Protein backbone atom coordinates (compact mmCIF):
# COMPACT_ATOMS: atom_id res chain seq x y z
CA UNK A 1 0.00 0.00 0.00
CA UNK A 2 2.90 2.37 0.72
CA UNK A 3 3.92 2.10 -2.94
CA UNK A 4 0.48 3.15 -4.16
CA UNK A 5 1.29 6.91 -4.48
CA UNK A 6 4.27 5.98 -6.64
CA UNK A 7 2.15 3.72 -8.86
CA UNK A 8 -0.64 6.29 -8.99
CA UNK A 9 1.88 8.97 -9.96
CA UNK A 10 2.97 6.80 -12.89
CA UNK A 11 -0.60 6.40 -14.07
CA UNK A 12 -1.57 10.04 -13.68
CA UNK A 13 1.61 11.43 -15.20
CA UNK A 14 -0.18 11.80 -18.55
CA UNK A 15 -3.80 12.00 -17.47
CA UNK A 16 -5.37 12.26 -20.92
CA UNK A 17 -3.49 9.23 -22.23
CA UNK A 18 -4.45 7.19 -19.18
CA UNK A 19 -8.10 8.22 -19.49
CA UNK A 20 -8.21 7.36 -23.21
CA UNK A 21 -6.59 3.98 -22.60
CA UNK A 22 -8.97 3.34 -19.73
CA UNK A 23 -11.90 4.20 -22.03
CA UNK A 24 -10.60 1.78 -24.69
CA UNK A 25 -10.41 -1.00 -22.13
CA UNK A 26 -13.83 -0.03 -20.77
CA UNK A 27 -15.49 -0.15 -24.19
CA UNK A 28 -13.79 -3.45 -25.05
CA UNK A 29 -15.01 -5.07 -21.85
CA UNK A 30 -18.47 -3.53 -22.21
CA UNK A 31 -18.65 -5.27 -25.58
CA UNK A 32 -17.17 -8.42 -24.06
CA UNK A 33 -19.79 -8.43 -21.30
CA UNK A 34 -22.70 -7.89 -23.69
CA UNK A 35 -21.58 -10.42 -26.31
CA UNK A 36 -20.44 -13.09 -23.88
CA UNK A 37 -23.63 -12.56 -21.89
CA UNK A 38 -25.71 -13.15 -25.02
CA UNK A 39 -23.56 -16.16 -25.84
CA UNK A 40 -24.03 -17.52 -22.33
CA UNK A 41 -27.79 -17.04 -22.66
CA UNK A 42 -27.77 -19.08 -25.85
CA UNK A 43 -25.45 -21.70 -24.41
CA UNK A 44 -27.54 -22.15 -21.28
CA UNK A 45 -29.99 -24.21 -23.33
CA UNK A 46 -27.16 -26.46 -24.45
CA UNK A 47 -25.66 -26.88 -21.00
CA UNK A 48 -29.07 -27.60 -19.52
CA UNK A 49 -29.74 -30.44 -21.97
CA UNK A 50 -30.79 -33.73 -20.38
CA UNK A 51 -28.82 -36.87 -21.12
CA UNK A 52 -31.86 -39.15 -21.00
CA UNK A 53 -33.61 -37.33 -23.84
CA UNK A 54 -33.10 -37.85 -27.56
CA UNK A 55 -34.46 -35.80 -30.42
CA UNK A 56 -35.74 -37.37 -33.62
CA UNK A 57 -35.59 -34.93 -36.54
CA UNK A 58 -35.64 -35.02 -40.34
CA UNK A 59 -32.46 -36.52 -41.75
CA UNK A 60 -31.91 -34.02 -44.53
CA UNK A 61 -32.79 -30.87 -42.66
CA UNK A 62 -33.90 -29.80 -39.27
CA UNK A 63 -36.85 -28.08 -40.95
CA UNK A 64 -38.13 -31.30 -42.58
CA UNK A 65 -41.45 -32.40 -41.14
CA UNK A 66 -42.19 -36.00 -40.14
CA UNK A 67 -45.49 -37.87 -40.03
CA UNK A 68 -47.27 -37.93 -36.69
CA UNK A 69 -47.69 -41.64 -37.33
CA UNK A 70 -44.03 -42.19 -36.46
CA UNK A 71 -44.86 -41.63 -32.84
CA UNK A 72 -46.27 -45.11 -32.18
CA UNK A 73 -43.35 -46.78 -33.95
CA UNK A 74 -40.81 -44.77 -31.96
CA UNK A 75 -42.59 -45.58 -28.70
CA UNK A 76 -42.25 -49.28 -29.49
CA UNK A 77 -38.44 -49.15 -29.78
CA UNK A 78 -36.79 -50.99 -26.85
CA UNK A 79 -35.32 -48.51 -24.35
CA UNK A 80 -37.84 -45.74 -25.17
CA UNK A 81 -39.99 -44.88 -22.13
CA UNK A 82 -41.86 -41.80 -23.39
CA UNK A 83 -42.41 -39.85 -26.61
CA UNK A 84 -43.72 -36.37 -27.31
CA UNK A 85 -43.43 -33.96 -30.20
CA UNK A 86 -43.38 -30.29 -31.14
CA UNK A 87 -43.01 -28.03 -34.19
CA UNK A 88 -41.45 -24.64 -34.87
CA UNK A 89 -44.24 -22.10 -35.28
CA UNK A 90 -42.18 -18.99 -36.09
CA UNK A 91 -44.45 -16.74 -34.04
CA UNK A 92 -44.25 -13.03 -33.40
CA UNK A 93 -46.37 -10.43 -31.67
CA UNK A 94 -47.52 -7.50 -33.84
CA UNK A 95 -44.12 -6.96 -35.46
CA UNK A 96 -41.65 -9.63 -36.73
CA UNK A 97 -38.97 -8.20 -34.44
CA UNK A 98 -41.12 -9.17 -31.42
CA UNK A 99 -40.40 -12.84 -31.75
CA UNK A 100 -42.46 -15.23 -29.62
CA UNK A 101 -40.86 -18.68 -29.40
CA UNK A 102 -44.05 -20.65 -30.01
CA UNK A 103 -44.46 -24.42 -30.26
CA UNK A 104 -47.55 -26.54 -30.93
CA UNK A 105 -47.31 -29.52 -28.56
CA UNK A 106 -49.32 -32.36 -27.10
CA UNK A 107 -50.14 -31.11 -23.57
CA UNK A 108 -50.60 -34.52 -21.97
CA UNK A 109 -47.10 -35.69 -22.84
CA UNK A 110 -45.04 -32.58 -23.41
CA UNK A 111 -44.89 -31.13 -19.87
CA UNK A 112 -44.19 -34.53 -18.29
CA UNK A 113 -41.27 -34.90 -20.74
CA UNK A 114 -39.83 -31.59 -19.51
CA UNK A 115 -40.12 -31.56 -15.71
CA UNK A 116 -37.88 -28.47 -15.61
CA UNK A 117 -40.87 -26.50 -16.93
CA UNK A 118 -42.75 -25.80 -13.71
CA UNK A 119 -46.48 -25.41 -14.34
CA UNK A 120 -49.47 -26.30 -12.14
CA UNK A 121 -51.13 -29.55 -13.16
CA UNK A 122 -54.57 -27.91 -13.50
CA UNK A 123 -53.14 -25.46 -16.02
CA UNK A 124 -51.80 -28.33 -18.15
CA UNK A 125 -55.23 -29.93 -17.95
CA UNK A 126 -56.79 -26.60 -18.94
CA UNK A 127 -54.52 -26.49 -21.98
CA UNK A 128 -55.56 -30.00 -22.97
CA UNK A 129 -59.22 -29.04 -22.68
CA UNK A 130 -58.98 -25.62 -24.33
CA UNK A 131 -58.53 -25.93 -28.09
CA UNK A 132 -56.97 -22.46 -28.47
CA UNK A 133 -55.29 -22.57 -25.07
CA UNK A 134 -51.67 -21.61 -24.51
CA UNK A 135 -49.23 -21.85 -21.63
CA UNK A 136 -46.69 -19.07 -21.69
CA UNK A 137 -43.43 -18.39 -19.87
CA UNK A 138 -43.32 -15.95 -16.98
CA UNK A 139 -40.91 -13.59 -18.73
CA UNK A 140 -43.07 -13.50 -21.87
CA UNK A 141 -46.13 -12.81 -19.73
CA UNK A 142 -44.31 -10.01 -17.92
CA UNK A 143 -42.98 -8.51 -21.12
CA UNK A 144 -46.38 -8.03 -22.74
CA UNK A 145 -48.36 -7.96 -19.50
CA UNK A 146 -50.30 -11.03 -20.60
CA UNK A 147 -52.44 -12.70 -17.98
CA UNK A 148 -54.33 -15.97 -17.59
CA UNK A 149 -57.72 -15.69 -19.30
CA UNK A 150 -56.50 -13.16 -21.82
CA UNK A 151 -56.77 -13.74 -25.59
CA UNK A 152 -53.52 -12.97 -27.39
CA UNK A 153 -52.94 -12.54 -31.12
CA UNK A 154 -49.76 -14.15 -32.48
CA UNK A 155 -48.76 -14.11 -36.13
CA UNK A 156 -46.75 -16.89 -37.75
CA UNK A 157 -43.97 -16.26 -40.23
CA UNK A 158 -44.44 -19.81 -41.60
CA UNK A 159 -47.90 -21.16 -41.05
CA UNK A 160 -50.98 -19.79 -42.76
CA UNK A 161 -54.44 -20.83 -41.69
CA UNK A 162 -57.13 -22.31 -43.86
CA UNK A 163 -58.62 -18.82 -44.20
CA UNK A 164 -55.35 -17.69 -45.80
CA UNK A 165 -54.25 -15.47 -42.94
CA UNK A 166 -51.35 -16.03 -40.61
CA UNK A 167 -53.14 -14.50 -37.62
CA UNK A 168 -53.50 -16.96 -34.80
CA UNK A 169 -55.29 -16.35 -31.55
CA UNK A 170 -54.62 -18.07 -28.26
CA UNK A 171 -56.19 -17.97 -24.82
CA UNK A 172 -53.68 -17.95 -21.99
CA UNK A 173 -54.55 -20.79 -19.60
CA UNK A 174 -51.29 -21.09 -17.72
CA UNK A 175 -47.89 -19.60 -16.95
CA UNK A 176 -44.78 -21.71 -16.50
CA UNK A 177 -41.38 -21.08 -14.91
CA UNK A 178 -37.96 -22.50 -15.74
CA UNK A 179 -35.66 -21.30 -12.99
CA UNK A 180 -32.63 -23.22 -14.31
CA UNK A 181 -32.89 -21.68 -17.75
CA UNK A 182 -34.87 -18.42 -17.54
CA UNK A 183 -34.47 -17.82 -21.29
CA UNK A 184 -37.02 -20.65 -21.75
CA UNK A 185 -39.59 -18.42 -20.08
CA UNK A 186 -39.91 -16.46 -23.32
CA UNK A 187 -41.69 -19.48 -24.89
CA UNK A 188 -45.32 -20.21 -25.69
CA UNK A 189 -46.80 -23.72 -25.95
CA UNK A 190 -50.18 -24.39 -27.49
CA UNK A 191 -52.34 -27.32 -28.64
CA UNK A 192 -51.03 -29.25 -31.63
CA UNK A 193 -54.62 -30.34 -32.34
CA UNK A 194 -55.68 -26.74 -32.90
CA UNK A 195 -52.57 -26.08 -34.98
CA UNK A 196 -53.03 -29.18 -37.14
CA UNK A 197 -56.69 -28.46 -37.84
CA UNK A 198 -56.22 -24.81 -38.60
CA UNK A 199 -53.05 -24.82 -40.71
CA UNK A 200 -53.36 -24.84 -44.46
CA UNK A 201 -50.56 -27.32 -45.25
CA UNK A 202 -48.41 -30.15 -43.87
CA UNK A 203 -51.29 -31.55 -41.88
CA UNK A 204 -50.46 -34.68 -39.88
CA UNK A 205 -46.80 -33.73 -39.73
CA UNK A 206 -44.64 -32.65 -36.80
CA UNK A 207 -41.29 -30.89 -36.53
CA UNK A 208 -39.47 -33.24 -34.16
CA UNK A 209 -40.00 -35.91 -31.56
CA UNK A 210 -38.52 -35.86 -28.08
CA UNK A 211 -37.85 -39.33 -26.70
CA UNK A 212 -37.02 -40.32 -23.13
CA UNK A 213 -34.84 -43.38 -22.80
CA UNK A 214 -34.38 -45.74 -19.87
CA UNK A 215 -30.62 -45.24 -19.60
CA UNK A 216 -28.40 -42.50 -21.10
CA UNK A 217 -25.83 -45.21 -21.88
CA UNK A 218 -28.33 -46.75 -24.29
CA UNK A 219 -28.62 -43.49 -26.24
CA UNK A 220 -26.52 -44.42 -29.29
CA UNK A 221 -28.18 -47.83 -29.65
CA UNK A 222 -31.70 -46.42 -29.29
CA UNK A 223 -30.92 -43.63 -31.75
CA UNK A 224 -29.64 -46.15 -34.28
CA UNK A 225 -32.74 -48.34 -33.83
CA UNK A 226 -35.09 -45.38 -34.41
CA UNK A 227 -33.26 -44.21 -37.53
CA UNK A 228 -33.19 -47.78 -38.85
CA UNK A 229 -36.97 -47.91 -38.55
CA UNK A 230 -37.40 -45.11 -41.05
CA UNK A 231 -34.43 -45.79 -43.31
CA UNK A 232 -35.31 -45.61 -47.02
CA UNK A 233 -38.71 -44.06 -46.21
CA UNK A 234 -39.94 -40.79 -47.64
CA UNK A 235 -39.09 -39.09 -44.31
CA UNK A 236 -35.85 -40.52 -43.05
CA UNK A 237 -34.83 -39.49 -39.53
CA UNK A 238 -31.74 -38.45 -37.71
CA UNK A 239 -31.80 -39.07 -33.96
CA UNK A 240 -29.45 -37.03 -31.83
CA UNK A 241 -28.98 -36.15 -28.20
CA UNK A 242 -30.85 -33.16 -26.87
CA UNK A 243 -27.56 -31.28 -26.60
CA UNK A 244 -26.70 -31.83 -30.27
CA UNK A 245 -30.20 -30.83 -31.24
CA UNK A 246 -30.08 -27.61 -29.24
CA UNK A 247 -26.74 -26.75 -30.79
CA UNK A 248 -27.99 -27.35 -34.34
CA UNK A 249 -31.15 -25.37 -33.50
CA UNK A 250 -29.08 -22.42 -32.37
CA UNK A 251 -27.05 -22.65 -35.57
CA UNK A 252 -30.25 -21.77 -37.43
CA UNK A 253 -29.70 -18.33 -35.92
CA UNK A 254 -26.01 -18.42 -36.83
CA UNK A 255 -23.05 -19.82 -34.96
CA UNK A 256 -23.40 -17.38 -32.08
CA UNK A 257 -20.38 -18.71 -30.25
CA UNK A 258 -18.20 -18.37 -33.35
CA UNK A 259 -19.45 -14.86 -34.09
CA UNK A 260 -19.01 -13.71 -30.49
CA UNK A 261 -15.56 -15.29 -30.20
CA UNK A 262 -14.47 -13.73 -33.48
CA UNK A 263 -15.63 -10.24 -32.53
CA UNK A 264 -14.16 -10.41 -29.04
CA UNK A 265 -10.95 -11.88 -30.41
CA UNK A 266 -10.57 -9.01 -32.88
CA UNK A 267 -11.36 -6.40 -30.23
CA UNK A 268 -8.91 -7.88 -27.72
CA UNK A 269 -6.23 -8.23 -30.39
CA UNK A 270 -6.54 -4.51 -31.16
CA UNK A 271 -6.68 -3.72 -27.45
CA UNK A 272 -3.52 -5.72 -26.86
CA UNK A 273 -1.60 -3.49 -29.25
CA UNK A 274 -3.19 -0.29 -27.97
CA UNK A 275 -2.56 -1.01 -24.29
CA UNK A 276 0.83 -2.53 -25.00
CA UNK A 277 1.86 0.55 -26.94
CA UNK A 278 0.61 2.83 -24.17
CA UNK A 279 2.56 0.91 -21.55
CA UNK A 280 5.70 0.90 -23.68
CA UNK A 281 5.40 4.63 -24.34
CA UNK A 282 4.70 5.41 -20.70
CA UNK A 283 7.69 3.38 -19.52
CA UNK A 284 9.99 4.77 -22.23
CA UNK A 285 9.21 8.33 -21.11
CA UNK A 286 10.02 7.42 -17.51
CA UNK A 287 13.32 5.63 -18.06
CA UNK A 288 15.27 8.31 -16.11
CA UNK A 289 12.75 8.05 -13.26
CA UNK A 290 13.10 4.28 -13.09
CA UNK A 291 16.88 4.70 -13.21
CA UNK A 292 16.65 7.00 -10.18
CA UNK A 293 14.47 4.47 -8.35
CA UNK A 294 17.04 1.77 -9.00
CA UNK A 295 19.83 4.14 -7.95
CA UNK A 296 18.23 4.76 -4.56
CA UNK A 297 17.77 1.04 -3.96
CA UNK A 298 14.66 -0.27 -5.73
CA UNK A 299 15.42 -3.80 -6.92
CA UNK A 300 14.90 -5.14 -10.46
CA UNK A 301 11.88 -7.09 -9.19
CA UNK A 302 10.58 -3.98 -7.43
CA UNK A 303 10.49 -1.82 -10.56
CA UNK A 304 9.06 -4.73 -12.58
CA UNK A 305 6.30 -5.04 -9.98
CA UNK A 306 5.54 -1.30 -10.23
CA UNK A 307 5.02 -1.57 -14.00
CA UNK A 308 2.94 -4.75 -13.67
CA UNK A 309 0.71 -3.23 -11.00
CA UNK A 310 0.23 -0.12 -13.16
CA UNK A 311 -0.88 -2.38 -16.03
CA UNK A 312 -3.14 -4.40 -13.74
CA UNK A 313 -4.76 -1.29 -12.27
CA UNK A 314 -5.45 0.12 -15.72
CA UNK A 315 -6.82 -3.13 -17.15
CA UNK A 316 -8.83 -4.22 -14.13
CA UNK A 317 -10.36 -0.78 -13.55
CA UNK A 318 -11.36 -0.51 -17.21
CA UNK A 319 -12.65 -4.08 -17.27
CA UNK A 320 -14.60 -3.66 -14.04
CA UNK A 321 -16.26 -0.48 -15.34
CA UNK A 322 -17.01 -2.11 -18.71
CA UNK A 323 -18.45 -5.24 -17.13
CA UNK A 324 -20.46 -3.11 -14.69
CA UNK A 325 -21.87 -1.23 -17.69
CA UNK A 326 -22.85 -4.43 -19.47
CA UNK A 327 -24.35 -5.82 -16.24
CA UNK A 328 -26.42 -2.63 -15.95
CA UNK A 329 -27.55 -2.99 -19.58
CA UNK A 330 -28.71 -6.61 -19.23
CA UNK A 331 -32.06 -5.92 -17.54
CA UNK A 332 -32.85 -3.61 -20.49
CA UNK A 333 -31.95 -6.37 -22.98
CA UNK A 334 -33.95 -9.08 -21.26
CA UNK A 335 -36.61 -9.16 -23.94
CA UNK A 336 -33.93 -9.75 -26.57
CA UNK A 337 -31.56 -12.17 -24.87
CA UNK A 338 -33.95 -13.78 -22.42
CA UNK A 339 -31.89 -13.30 -19.27
CA UNK A 340 -31.96 -10.35 -16.91
CA UNK A 341 -28.52 -10.66 -15.34
CA UNK A 342 -25.01 -10.87 -16.68
CA UNK A 343 -23.88 -14.38 -15.66
CA UNK A 344 -21.24 -14.43 -12.92
CA UNK A 345 -19.16 -16.76 -15.10
CA UNK A 346 -18.91 -13.99 -17.74
CA UNK A 347 -17.79 -11.46 -15.10
CA UNK A 348 -15.17 -13.90 -13.80
CA UNK A 349 -13.96 -14.67 -17.32
CA UNK A 350 -13.80 -10.92 -18.08
CA UNK A 351 -11.68 -10.18 -15.02
CA UNK A 352 -9.42 -13.12 -15.86
CA UNK A 353 -8.99 -11.72 -19.40
CA UNK A 354 -8.20 -8.30 -17.89
CA UNK A 355 -5.46 -9.79 -15.72
CA UNK A 356 -4.09 -11.66 -18.72
CA UNK A 357 -4.20 -8.50 -20.84
CA UNK A 358 -2.35 -6.54 -18.15
CA UNK A 359 0.33 -9.17 -17.75
CA UNK A 360 0.88 -9.55 -21.49
CA UNK A 361 1.05 -5.80 -22.13
CA UNK A 362 3.06 -4.83 -19.04
CA UNK A 363 5.51 -7.72 -18.96
CA UNK A 364 7.68 -6.50 -21.84
CA UNK A 365 8.07 -2.87 -20.66
CA UNK A 366 8.40 -4.14 -17.08
CA UNK A 367 11.17 -6.51 -18.14
CA UNK A 368 12.89 -3.67 -19.97
CA UNK A 369 12.85 -1.55 -16.82
CA UNK A 370 14.07 -4.45 -14.67
CA UNK A 371 17.02 -4.98 -17.03
CA UNK A 372 17.74 -1.26 -17.22
CA UNK A 373 21.41 -0.28 -16.98
CA UNK A 374 21.32 2.56 -14.47
CA UNK A 375 24.57 4.17 -15.61
CA UNK A 376 23.47 4.28 -19.25
CA UNK A 377 19.96 5.45 -18.35
CA UNK A 378 21.22 8.27 -16.14
CA UNK A 379 23.64 9.33 -18.87
CA UNK A 380 20.72 9.42 -21.34
CA UNK A 381 22.22 6.62 -23.47
Amino acid at each position, binding site marked *: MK*YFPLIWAGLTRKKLRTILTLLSVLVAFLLFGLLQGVNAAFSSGVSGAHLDRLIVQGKVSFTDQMPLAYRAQIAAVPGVTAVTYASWFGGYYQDPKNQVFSFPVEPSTYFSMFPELTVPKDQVEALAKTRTGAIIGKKLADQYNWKIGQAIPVKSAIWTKLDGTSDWSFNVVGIFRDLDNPSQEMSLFFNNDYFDEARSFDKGMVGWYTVRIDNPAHGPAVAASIDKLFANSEHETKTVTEKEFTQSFLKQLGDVNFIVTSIIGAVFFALLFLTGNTMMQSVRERIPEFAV*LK*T*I*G*FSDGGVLAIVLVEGLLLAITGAALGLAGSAAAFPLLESVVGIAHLPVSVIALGLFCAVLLALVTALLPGWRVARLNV*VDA*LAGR
Partner: protein
Amino acid sequence: MTHAISMVNVIKHYRRGRESVEVLHGVNLEVGEGEFVAIMGPSGSGKSTLLNLIGGLDRPDSGSVSVAGQRIDKLSGGQLTHWRAGHVGFVFQFYNLMPALSAAANIELPLLLLPLSRVQRKAKVAAVLEIVGLSDRAKHKPSELSGGQQQRIAIGRALVSDPPILLCDEPTGDLDRGTATEILDLIQLLSRREKKTVVMVTHDQKAADSASRQLHVDKGQLLDAGIAA
Protein backbone atom coordinates in the same frame (compact mmCIF):
# COMPACT_ATOMS: atom_id res chain seq x y z
CA MET B 1 41.85 8.84 9.70
CA THR B 2 39.34 6.04 8.95
CA HIS B 3 38.65 5.74 5.25
CA ALA B 4 35.07 6.01 4.13
CA ILE B 5 36.12 5.28 0.56
CA SER B 6 39.11 3.32 -0.67
CA MET B 7 39.90 2.46 -4.28
CA VAL B 8 42.97 0.42 -5.13
CA ASN B 9 44.33 0.06 -8.66
CA VAL B 10 40.88 0.35 -10.22
CA ILE B 11 40.63 -0.28 -13.95
CA LYS B 12 37.42 0.20 -15.90
CA HIS B 13 36.68 -0.37 -19.56
CA TYR B 14 33.61 0.57 -21.57
CA ARG B 15 32.55 -0.93 -24.83
CA ARG B 16 31.81 1.52 -27.61
CA GLY B 17 30.49 -0.57 -30.46
CA ARG B 18 33.12 -3.23 -31.06
CA GLU B 19 35.81 -1.18 -29.39
CA SER B 20 36.79 -1.51 -25.73
CA VAL B 21 37.94 1.78 -24.21
CA GLU B 22 39.81 1.92 -20.92
CA VAL B 23 38.22 4.77 -18.96
CA LEU B 24 40.08 4.44 -15.68
CA HIS B 25 43.70 3.29 -15.59
CA GLY B 26 44.63 1.94 -12.19
CA VAL B 27 43.09 4.61 -9.98
CA ASN B 28 43.95 4.75 -6.28
CA LEU B 29 41.83 6.90 -4.01
CA GLU B 30 41.20 7.28 -0.30
CA VAL B 31 38.57 9.55 1.22
CA GLY B 32 38.30 9.97 4.94
CA GLU B 33 35.07 9.89 6.92
CA GLY B 34 33.34 13.26 6.94
CA GLU B 35 35.60 14.59 4.18
CA PHE B 36 34.22 16.77 1.39
CA VAL B 37 36.10 15.97 -1.82
CA ALA B 38 35.63 17.66 -5.16
CA ILE B 39 36.65 15.78 -8.30
CA MET B 40 37.34 17.96 -11.30
CA GLY B 41 38.30 17.21 -14.83
CA PRO B 42 37.34 17.71 -18.47
CA SER B 43 34.42 15.91 -20.10
CA GLY B 44 35.19 12.26 -20.77
CA SER B 45 38.04 12.18 -18.27
CA GLY B 46 36.38 9.46 -16.21
CA LYS B 47 35.17 11.45 -13.19
CA SER B 48 31.54 10.33 -13.48
CA THR B 49 32.73 6.73 -13.89
CA LEU B 50 34.68 7.15 -10.67
CA LEU B 51 31.54 8.41 -8.94
CA ASN B 52 29.47 5.50 -10.32
CA LEU B 53 31.99 3.00 -8.99
CA ILE B 54 31.99 4.60 -5.53
CA GLY B 55 28.19 4.59 -5.54
CA GLY B 56 27.93 0.94 -6.53
CA LEU B 57 26.13 1.77 -9.77
CA ASP B 58 28.92 0.09 -11.72
CA ARG B 59 31.68 -2.41 -11.00
CA PRO B 60 35.39 -2.21 -11.86
CA ASP B 61 37.01 -4.66 -14.25
CA SER B 62 39.86 -5.03 -11.79
CA GLY B 63 41.03 -3.51 -8.55
CA SER B 64 39.05 -3.08 -5.35
CA VAL B 65 36.46 -0.57 -4.18
CA SER B 66 35.66 -0.37 -0.48
CA VAL B 67 32.99 2.01 0.69
CA ALA B 68 31.77 2.39 4.27
CA GLY B 69 33.80 -0.64 5.24
CA GLN B 70 32.41 -2.94 2.53
CA ARG B 71 34.18 -4.39 -0.55
CA ILE B 72 31.43 -3.44 -2.95
CA ASP B 73 33.22 -4.68 -6.06
CA LYS B 74 32.55 -8.20 -4.76
CA LEU B 75 28.79 -7.69 -4.43
CA SER B 76 26.25 -9.03 -6.94
CA GLY B 77 23.84 -6.68 -8.73
CA GLY B 78 21.06 -7.37 -6.24
CA GLN B 79 23.37 -6.99 -3.26
CA LEU B 80 24.64 -3.68 -4.64
CA THR B 81 21.09 -2.40 -5.01
CA HIS B 82 20.36 -3.32 -1.41
CA TRP B 83 23.66 -1.82 -0.27
CA ARG B 84 23.01 1.47 -2.07
CA ALA B 85 19.70 1.91 -0.24
CA GLY B 86 21.45 2.06 3.10
CA HIS B 87 24.85 3.58 2.38
CA VAL B 88 24.81 6.25 -0.34
CA GLY B 89 22.68 9.18 -1.32
CA PHE B 90 22.84 10.54 -4.87
CA VAL B 91 22.39 14.12 -6.08
CA PHE B 92 22.19 14.66 -9.84
CA GLN B 93 22.74 17.71 -12.02
CA PHE B 94 19.17 17.78 -13.30
CA TYR B 95 17.60 16.82 -9.92
CA ASN B 96 15.79 13.76 -11.40
CA LEU B 97 12.68 14.19 -9.26
CA MET B 98 9.43 12.34 -9.96
CA PRO B 99 7.32 15.05 -11.65
CA ALA B 100 3.98 13.63 -10.51
CA LEU B 101 4.97 13.37 -6.84
CA SER B 102 5.02 16.20 -4.31
CA ALA B 103 8.27 17.42 -2.78
CA ALA B 104 7.55 15.43 0.39
CA ALA B 105 6.69 12.28 -1.57
CA ASN B 106 9.91 12.60 -3.56
CA ILE B 107 11.94 12.83 -0.37
CA GLU B 108 10.02 9.86 1.07
CA LEU B 109 10.96 7.48 -1.79
CA PRO B 110 14.09 5.89 -0.22
CA LEU B 111 12.16 5.36 3.02
CA LEU B 112 9.65 3.10 1.23
CA LEU B 113 12.39 0.48 1.14
CA LEU B 114 12.85 0.56 4.91
CA PRO B 115 10.65 -1.12 7.53
CA LEU B 116 9.14 2.12 8.78
CA SER B 117 5.56 3.03 9.61
CA ARG B 118 3.81 5.83 7.76
CA VAL B 119 4.12 8.07 10.83
CA GLN B 120 7.85 7.37 11.11
CA ARG B 121 8.33 8.14 7.42
CA LYS B 122 6.38 11.41 7.70
CA ALA B 123 8.47 12.46 10.70
CA LYS B 124 11.75 11.80 8.87
CA VAL B 125 10.54 13.66 5.78
CA ALA B 126 9.49 16.64 7.92
CA ALA B 127 12.91 16.70 9.58
CA VAL B 128 14.72 16.65 6.23
CA LEU B 129 12.45 19.34 4.77
CA GLU B 130 13.47 21.46 7.75
CA ILE B 131 17.19 20.82 7.05
CA VAL B 132 16.89 21.78 3.37
CA GLY B 133 14.71 24.76 4.31
CA LEU B 134 11.61 23.82 2.33
CA SER B 135 9.06 22.86 4.99
CA ASP B 136 6.58 25.29 3.42
CA ARG B 137 6.94 23.62 -0.01
CA ALA B 138 6.21 20.05 1.08
CA LYS B 139 3.07 19.66 -1.03
CA HIS B 140 4.38 21.36 -4.13
CA LYS B 141 5.14 19.40 -7.27
CA PRO B 142 8.63 19.79 -8.80
CA SER B 143 7.19 21.89 -11.64
CA GLU B 144 6.02 24.40 -9.00
CA LEU B 145 9.52 24.79 -7.56
CA SER B 146 12.57 26.75 -8.75
CA GLY B 147 15.73 24.93 -9.87
CA GLY B 148 17.42 25.61 -6.53
CA GLN B 149 14.41 24.37 -4.60
CA GLN B 150 14.26 21.23 -6.73
CA GLN B 151 17.94 20.55 -6.02
CA ARG B 152 17.28 21.02 -2.30
CA ILE B 153 14.51 18.43 -2.55
CA ALA B 154 16.93 16.10 -4.38
CA ILE B 155 19.45 16.61 -1.58
CA GLY B 156 16.67 15.88 0.92
CA ARG B 157 15.91 12.63 -0.92
CA ALA B 158 19.60 11.70 -0.78
CA LEU B 159 19.75 12.46 2.95
CA VAL B 160 16.51 11.05 4.27
CA SER B 161 17.64 7.49 4.89
CA ASP B 162 20.72 8.89 6.66
CA PRO B 163 23.43 7.34 4.46
CA PRO B 164 27.03 8.01 5.54
CA ILE B 165 28.06 8.98 2.00
CA LEU B 166 26.67 11.62 -0.32
CA LEU B 167 27.61 11.51 -4.01
CA CYS B 168 26.92 14.64 -6.05
CA ASP B 169 27.25 14.72 -9.84
CA GLU B 170 27.47 18.37 -10.95
CA PRO B 171 24.91 19.46 -8.33
CA THR B 172 25.19 23.12 -9.33
CA GLY B 173 25.61 22.59 -13.06
CA ASP B 174 22.06 23.70 -13.85
CA LEU B 175 21.86 26.61 -11.39
CA ASP B 176 22.72 30.30 -11.42
CA ARG B 177 25.65 31.47 -9.32
CA GLY B 178 23.60 32.70 -6.35
CA THR B 179 21.53 29.53 -6.11
CA ALA B 180 24.62 27.39 -6.68
CA THR B 181 26.28 29.05 -3.69
CA GLU B 182 23.23 28.26 -1.53
CA ILE B 183 23.34 24.60 -2.57
CA LEU B 184 27.08 24.37 -1.96
CA ASP B 185 26.60 25.94 1.48
CA LEU B 186 24.00 23.29 2.23
CA ILE B 187 26.32 20.47 1.12
CA GLN B 188 29.13 21.96 3.19
CA LEU B 189 26.81 22.13 6.17
CA LEU B 190 25.87 18.48 5.76
CA SER B 191 29.52 17.52 5.62
CA ARG B 192 30.44 19.52 8.70
CA ARG B 193 27.36 19.20 10.89
CA GLU B 194 25.98 15.81 9.84
CA LYS B 195 29.47 14.32 9.29
CA LYS B 196 28.55 13.08 5.82
CA THR B 197 31.35 12.04 3.53
CA VAL B 198 30.76 13.98 0.32
CA VAL B 199 32.23 13.29 -3.11
CA MET B 200 31.25 15.90 -5.67
CA VAL B 201 32.03 15.84 -9.37
CA THR B 202 32.12 19.30 -10.90
CA HIS B 203 33.46 21.40 -13.74
CA ASP B 204 33.08 24.53 -11.70
CA GLN B 205 36.19 25.75 -9.84
CA LYS B 206 34.07 27.90 -7.53
CA ALA B 207 32.06 24.85 -6.55
CA ALA B 208 35.24 22.83 -6.03
CA ASP B 209 36.57 25.57 -3.78
CA SER B 210 33.88 24.78 -1.24
CA ALA B 211 35.30 21.27 -0.79
CA SER B 212 37.96 20.39 1.78
CA ARG B 213 40.06 18.65 -0.89
CA GLN B 214 40.21 18.86 -4.66
CA LEU B 215 41.21 16.04 -6.99
CA HIS B 216 41.76 16.22 -10.73
CA VAL B 217 41.05 13.44 -13.19
CA ASP B 218 42.39 13.46 -16.70
CA LYS B 219 42.40 10.68 -19.27
CA GLY B 220 41.38 8.13 -16.71
CA GLN B 221 43.99 8.92 -14.12
CA LEU B 222 43.97 10.86 -10.86
CA LEU B 223 46.56 13.54 -11.31
CA ASP B 224 46.79 14.19 -7.58
CA ALA B 225 47.82 11.36 -5.32
CA GLY B 226 44.19 10.91 -4.32
CA ILE B 227 45.32 9.89 -0.89
CA ALA B 228 44.06 11.94 2.02
CA ALA B 229 46.68 13.66 4.06
